[in-house]
């Protein structure tokens, strides 16, 4: 069969087509599962915060309100798409799409469990950082093109906040890179499993702290949600957006949270592995599939996002900048120096 076909088309192209087909199926599965997670992340958030504030949260649609995310999605899908008359139309159309694509593309390099990753890039971590800064374009362009004061101020704030904290985040990951010796996320996880503590959070606690704070700021979540501070800027950069364009921003933001949680789980908490001293102590835990550990770590950090949102008030803008530039960046640099020194000492260089 193959040989007959190969006389018509170029040899080897069937394997090629098959490989592409497998990749496409993988992509579809990952995106579908990620979007389902994102949908339920919104439900989970509303429930968690409601219970922290002694309310009940959504409970009308379906049992325990479980269909609420779908109802919201369908509602937003059929809403009118209002485009302000003064808006810069092409940019206004495109910016939510840019924001959403940047968020979804980052999913490609995340290894969910051993060997399951769409694109096993050897610069996976760098790719993630690049994509997270690409999302800032969507924010800035939406703030600019809406031609509204609230959007404009929100876009400005978002731009300088995201770039300020991106430095701190990039520097906090250098310690992990030194210890793992790789930018490939799967290799980072394997390096952690080979390391005596099993996770990098223990030797890299300074980097971990900087990364957590920067992750909150990068995804514009409370207590750093100044770009969309609803009490002063209505909704910040997406004030003028409605209907499905608003939904794209919303989905993009929650996908960003999911990606930050996954990055944290992969770089600091050991991804799909658990420390060996735990499996030595309780052997049957090593039979649990890796995806379970990975998702547990991701959910724990998502819960932490909501917990912080329900607990802390919003920072002032000058405080936000002071934390980013005066605290996190020096801490990250000190972390790099210490990590480098210790590693050089272990290797016997000093």
């Amino acid at each position, binding site marked *: 069969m193959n040989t007959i076909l190969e006389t018509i088309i170029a040899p080897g192209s069937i394997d090629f087509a098959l490989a592409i087909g497998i990749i*496409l199926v993988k992509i579809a599965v990952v995106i579908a599962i990620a979007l389902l997670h994102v949908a339920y992340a919104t439900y989970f958030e509303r429930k968690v915060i409601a219970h922290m504030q002694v309310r009940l949260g959504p409970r009308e649609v379906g049992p325990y309100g479980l269909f609420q995310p779908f109802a919201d999605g369908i509602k937003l899908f059929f809403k009118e798409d209002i485009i302000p008359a003064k808006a810069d139309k092409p940019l206004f159309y495109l910016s939510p799409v840019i924001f959403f694509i940047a968020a979804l593309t980052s999913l490609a390099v995340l290894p969910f469990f051993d060997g399951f990753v769409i694109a096993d890039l050897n610069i996976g971590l760098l790719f993630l950082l690049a994509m997270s800064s690409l999302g800032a374009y969507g924010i800035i362009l939406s703030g600019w093109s809406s031609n509204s004061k609230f959007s404009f101020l929100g876009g400005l704030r978002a731009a300088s906040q995201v770039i300020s904290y991106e430095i701190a985040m990039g520097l906090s990951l250098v310690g992990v890179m030194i210890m793992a010796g790789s930018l490939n996320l799967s290799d980072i996880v394997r390096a952690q499993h080979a390391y005596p503590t099993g996770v990098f959070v223990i030797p890299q606690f300074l980097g971990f702290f900087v990364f957590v704070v920067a992750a909150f700021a990068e995804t514009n979540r409370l207590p750093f949600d100044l770009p969309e501070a609803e009490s002063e800027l209505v909704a910040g950069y997406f004030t003028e957006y409605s209907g499905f364009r608003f939904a794209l921003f919303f989905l993009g933001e929650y996908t960003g949270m999911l990606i930050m949680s996954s990055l944290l789980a992969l770089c600091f908490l050991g991804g799909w592995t658990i420390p060996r001293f735990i499996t030595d102590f309780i052997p049957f835990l090593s039979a649990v599939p890796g995806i379970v550990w990975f998702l547990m770590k991701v959910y724990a950090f998502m819960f932490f996002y909501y917990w912080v949102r329900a607990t802390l008030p919003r920072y002032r803008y000058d405080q936000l900048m002071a934390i980013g530039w005066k605290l996190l960046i020096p801490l990250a640099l000190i972390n790099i120096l210490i990590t480098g020194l210790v590693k*050089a000492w272990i290797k016997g260089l000093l």
Partner: protein
Amino acid sequence: MIATAFALGALVVGSIFRLKRPYAEKLMPYESGNPPVGEPRQRFSVKFYIIAMLFVVFDVEAVFLYPWAIVFDKIGLYAFIEMVIFIVILFVGYIYAWKKEAFVWD
């Protein structure tokens, strides 16, 4: 690619079904219910420019640190000390920016 298809596809399909009843008031920029006053694109604080310039400096520095961190195992003491000197020089620049009050928002 599929992400693009999803986003654009949903927008196009949605545009077939959803309502379209625009009128002048609805298309005005939102300003808490008042008619908008003045131009939205105003002058803004020069601080944002300073932050942007500092970002360029520090981001390039971070990019220099990545390859060094990756090949840390393979390089000797010389490269390590070299990078320590690099970070110290950056720190001097950082302290200068701090003393110049580049991080202070009034």
